[in-house]
């Protein structure tokens, strides 16, 4: 039944999309009826996904599509898990969106409703597609609908160019995926996934399929060096759309990669995993370092998504290597870590993107340098964002920590690999994971501290207002998700273990009980977030009580200490650039920096620093120049005279006639 339920939800979403056009300009109906309805559908979808992880697979043929080429659909534990992610995250985002839509921002609300729900439906369809044709159709629908969400504010030139970059790289990736399916069908001509599972590829063709899958799905997920679209496109979209793109759409790419690598492809070679691991680690480090120097809050979060995708791919790489060596329970551990992290990232990243949306609405300001002190004006948003901040910073007892803990445990088992070089290199490479995780803490302190804490850097921030009830509800749902995923890891892992069993034929040798999370062996490692939280909370309460009881609870307010320099303004707090300065200095070779320093005589001194991505200059601009050169060559064909064009057609016809004969 789960598959039918999923289809029903998809039909509901499409109907909502159509209703959105019907009531294109009626904000009340769109925001207060259609979006909450979509959220209810999302909850049903999440339940169906959960049911699918427990009960076996089911498939279905939809009599749609081209003649003789119907859509094959299938639901199993893997797609069930990702449907669970999609449903549970988008429920919160949809509720938030119903409070977020405003008249006069970008497209009409009905159009946004259309794109948004088509986007949701296409993501759900991607997750249940069971043949290459259906997969590609839904994949492209997903790309296009999200493109329209990105350019929803299309009056601005930079948003249009961000959208163009996004759609360009999405299509390059789609071509790679298409070719990958072409290799996977192995000459049988049957493009259904069921047929692909039966094909045994030679190592050579397997390697080509692997490379194409990594490039294609990696382009969508934003791995280095295919990440350039992500920090442009995600901030450009309205906040609920950014949240969905970062939190869910990137995960469909992860899903596709897992589907190809662990399900469709029979055999695996160990060094594929090493490549994925290396790419993942590079992506994580690159993403977090750039995230630390951003001064636009949504760009900062977009770069941080790149970092998290890096962690997810690193886990996938480990899983591939372990599986290639038939160490299946360890592969299950690595896979658990990456799936858990996908789920976590879905929750905390959407929470933070939505919080920036509320801040944006309250202040009309995205630049970190002009925010500050919002915890006093927007306490709800600030405290809920704190949950997301701590979760993404990877500190216990919230959810980000659990997946990082699992990933590190998986890394710690690598000395057991039967390969001398790997079992020395990979443990050392663990340092990259730790470094990136610690830098993520740095980034999130910067984000939260500059936006919500301190004093307002601009006068107008005093008028900022807290989020409305719908927005609060959406944020609350996601924050609760972060807390629950953090505190009950054992139950979550039970769900993920079903995916392990499906993909690896073996689950995690889980010796955990309800209190202690202990993968593999309990004496090897254990972690109990509940006990952790209980002890800290008890000590906090006991201390609070004892201090109040034995001393006093008096408090006096006074001005902050000015260090003997009374002329301090709010602008003297660290700006975003200032807070990023240590990272700029320590990781200088990563950046392409331009500094403008004022001379000592300047009457109005200005200090400016711009930080750019080397890869943009080393990789993309040369490709762009080559393309431009090629197109000027092609341009010579364009003469403007009708007779010349007729000549082209004529020549083409002659050549074709010769060829076909």
């Amino acid at each position, binding site marked *: 039944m789960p598959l039918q339920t999923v289809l029903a939800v998809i039909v509901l979403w499409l109907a909502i999309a159509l209703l959105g056009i019907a009531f294109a300009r009626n904000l009340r109906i769109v925001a207060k009826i259609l979006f909450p309805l979509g959220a209810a559908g999302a909850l049903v979808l999440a339940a169906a996904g959960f049911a699918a992880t427990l009960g076996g697979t089911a498939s279905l043929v939809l009599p749609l599509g081209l003649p003789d080429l119907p859509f094959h659909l299938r639901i199993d534990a893997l797609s069930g898990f990702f449907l669970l992610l999609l449903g549970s995250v988008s429920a919160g985002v949809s509720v938030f969106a119903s409070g977020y839509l405003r008249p006069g921002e970008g497209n009409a609300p009905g159009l946004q409703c259309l794109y948004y729900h088509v986007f949701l439906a296409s993501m759900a369809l991607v997750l249940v597609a069971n043949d290459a044709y259906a997969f590609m159709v839904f994949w492209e629908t997903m790309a296009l609908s999200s493109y329209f969400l990105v350019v929803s504010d299309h009056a601005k030139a930079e948003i249009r160019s961000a959208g163009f970059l996004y759609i360009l790289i999405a299509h390059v990736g789609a071509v790679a995926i298409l070719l990958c399916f072409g290799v996977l069908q192995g000459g049988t001509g049957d493009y259904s996934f069921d047929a692909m599972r039966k094909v045994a590829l030679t190592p050579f063709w397997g390697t080509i399929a692997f490379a194409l899958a990594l490039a294609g799905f990696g382009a969508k997920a934003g791995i280095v060096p295919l990440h350039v679209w992500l920090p442009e496109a995600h901030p450009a979209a309205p906040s609920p759309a950014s949240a969905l793109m970062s939190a869910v759409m990137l995960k469909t790419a992860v899903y596709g990669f897992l589907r190809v690598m662990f399900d469709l492809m029979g055999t695996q070679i160990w060094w594929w995993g090493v490549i994925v691991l290396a790419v993942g680690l590079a992506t994580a480090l690159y993403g977090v370092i750039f995230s630390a120097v951003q001064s636009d809050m949504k760009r900062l979060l977009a770069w941080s998504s790149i970092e998290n995708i890096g962690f997810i791919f690193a886990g996938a790489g480990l899983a591939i290597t372990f599986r290639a060596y038939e160490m299946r329970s360890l592969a299950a551990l690595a896979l658990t870590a990456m799936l858990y992290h996908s789920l976590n990232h879905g929750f905390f990243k959407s929470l933070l993107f939505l919080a920036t949306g509320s801040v944006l609405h309250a202040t009309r300001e995205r630049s970190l340098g002009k925010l500050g002190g919002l915890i006093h004006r927007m306490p709800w948003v600030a405290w809920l964002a704190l949950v997301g901040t701590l979760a993404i910073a990877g500190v216990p007892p919230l959810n980000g920590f659990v997946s990082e803990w699992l990933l590190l445990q998986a890394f710690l088992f690598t000395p057991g690999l039967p390969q001398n070089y790997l079992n020395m290199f990979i443990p050392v490479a663990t340092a990259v994971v730790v470094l990136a995780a610690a830098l993520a803490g740095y980034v999130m302190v910067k984000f939260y501290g500059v936006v919500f804490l301190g004093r307002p850097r601009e006068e107008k921030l005093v008028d900022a207002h807290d989020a409305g009830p719908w927005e609060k509800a959406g944020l609350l749902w996601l924050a609760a998700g972060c807390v629950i995923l953090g505190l009950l890891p054992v139950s979550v892992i039970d769900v993920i273990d079903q995916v392990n069993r499906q993909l690896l034929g073996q689950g995690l040798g889980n010796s955990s009980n309800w209190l202690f999370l202990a993968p593999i062996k309990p004496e090897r490692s254990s972690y109990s977030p509940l006990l952790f939280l209980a002890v800290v909370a008890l000590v906090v309460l006991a201390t609070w009580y004892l201090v109040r009881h034995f001393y006093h609870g008096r408090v*006096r307010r006074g001005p902050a200490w000015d260090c003997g320099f009374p002329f301090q303004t*709010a602008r003297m707090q660290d700006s975003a650039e200032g807070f990023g300065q240590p990272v700029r200095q320590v990781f200088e070779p990563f950046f392409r920096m331009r500094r403008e320093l004022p001379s000592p005589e300047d009457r109005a001194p200005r200090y400016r620093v711009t930080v750019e991505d080397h890869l943009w200059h080393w990789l993309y601009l040369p490709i762009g120049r080559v393309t431009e050169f090629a197109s000027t060559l092609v341009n010579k064909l364009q003469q403007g005279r009708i007779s010349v064009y007729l000549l082209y057609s004529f020549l083409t016809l002659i050549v074709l006639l010769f060829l076909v004969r």
Partner: protein
Amino acid sequence: MLTIAGIAAQLTELMLAVLLAPLFTGWVNMCRAWMQNKSAPPLLTPYRVLLKLFNKEPVLAQNASPLFRITPYIIFGCMCLAAAIVPTLDINLPFNAAADAIALVGLFALARVFMSLAAMDIGTAFGTLGARREMMIGFLAEPALLMVLFTASLISGSTSLSSIVGQLGRMELMIYPSLAFAGVAFTMVSLAENARIPVDNPATHLELTMIHEAMLLEYSGRHLALMEWAASLKLFAYSCIGIALFVPFGIADGGNWLGILISLPVLAVKLAAGGFLLALIESVSAKMRIFRAPEFLGTAFLLAVLAMLIHFLLES
């Protein structure tokens, strides 16, 4: 594991740690004064300072948010948990399983994040400066610390601190070059993490060189007392980790009271020696510029990596 006796032993250990941590700080200050030819403050000074601070009325900046007020309690709670996790007297206590070595690093990270956020809350230039530097030290120190813990866990095949200590304590007595390197790396990391010379100076109030103190500038009264107490606890916990990893002899195993009674004086002697060593290091080295810290911690990281590699080559 979760028996009444076990929990009682755990609570005893926790109370001892909380009560004795300021004594350890006092001992370090005393040794440092001796080495620098000053007349030493009495051993109990930290307690008097705490008592005085608790009695005083805290002054909050006008801009302080509730986050600023709850942070001292949270940090104190984190450090108490850290002191409970680290095997000090007995390696088989109930809370030990709640968090392994990685979770311990996460716990310190939690405290650090809260402290930095609280420092940014008032919105003065110094608070943010301290927060930024503290987070920088954090991301430089954590990889090195994790490498040290990984080396220890590779030797013992576990990341749970009590298993590591049990395993290391049972090993036959011989020279482990990897542990020697890891020990030096750990010492360097602990100096940085506990805001000691050469990375930070616990006694400075010169604004431009402060890291830890810059974050505490706005705290007063009971809040400051809790922060100071938490700092003592952190130093105590780090010393105990060092002791547990590198001189793991004489720690009780099995949770009987006699063993704990015996291990108490052993721990006291080891802590006294450790405090003396810390004071010695602080007296003979000079405070570094802040941007030398990456090199300092990079060296620690290198040592930890070498420790791991040498373990692979020579000891496996």
